[in-house]
């Protein structure tokens, strides 16, 4: 029963954070804030989706010990979790760097330290 509760909590967190990320993608004013909302929230939501699948598969393997495809599923999902964890923030950083190099200014920012550093 506690597994049910944890699973539903993970799934609700996942859907909630993905929804917040997509809403932020539409509501924020410029590239950097959109990147902040979309990338962080969707990464967090997807991590909790993989947690939910890992817990679900582990639970099924615990109650059906002979059936290896449940264990197989859990291990593959750990691989997907690692792939998301490594690739997603790096891609976001690359996009932000590219946007700053193209010359897009943060919309409501008062000070831009990176520009000063590059001008030196």
């Amino acid at each position, binding site marked *: 029963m506690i597994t049910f509760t944890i699973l539903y909590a993970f*799934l609700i967190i996942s859907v909630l954070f993905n929804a917040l990320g997509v809403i932020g993608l539409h509501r924020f004013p410029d590239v950097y804030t959109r990147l902040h909302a979309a990338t962080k929230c*969707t990464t967090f939501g997807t991590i909790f989706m993989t947690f939910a699948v890992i817990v679900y598969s582990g639970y099924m393997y615990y109650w059906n010990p002979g059936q290896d495809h449940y264990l197989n599923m859990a291990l593959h999902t750990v691989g997907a979790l690692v792939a998301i964890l490594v*690739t997603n923030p790096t891609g976001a950083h690359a996009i932000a760097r590219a946007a700053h190099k193209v010359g897009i200014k943060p919309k409501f920012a008062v000070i831009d330290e990176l520009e000063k550093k590059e001008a030196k």
Partner: protein
Amino acid sequence: MNLSFEFYLIVGAFIIFIIISVLRLFLGPTAPDRAVALDTINTLVVASMVGLGAATWETLFIDIAIVYAILSFVTTLFIAKYLEGGGD
């Protein structure tokens, strides 16, 4: 304990989110905006593939999700590289 229905429901929600993100892909005023929308869509596709794998108990979906995540990462890096070099 069978959660297939819940996972299908969540995959449906993710598909709605993907459609909303495609709107930003078309609207986005600058090129990096479109790149951000594409990155969001890629992450949501990975999440929905993991959910489909849990709903149908097919490990193949998870493998495809891993490969898709890595390939979309390479795509994002190349788009960023192109934007840096070519200007707007």
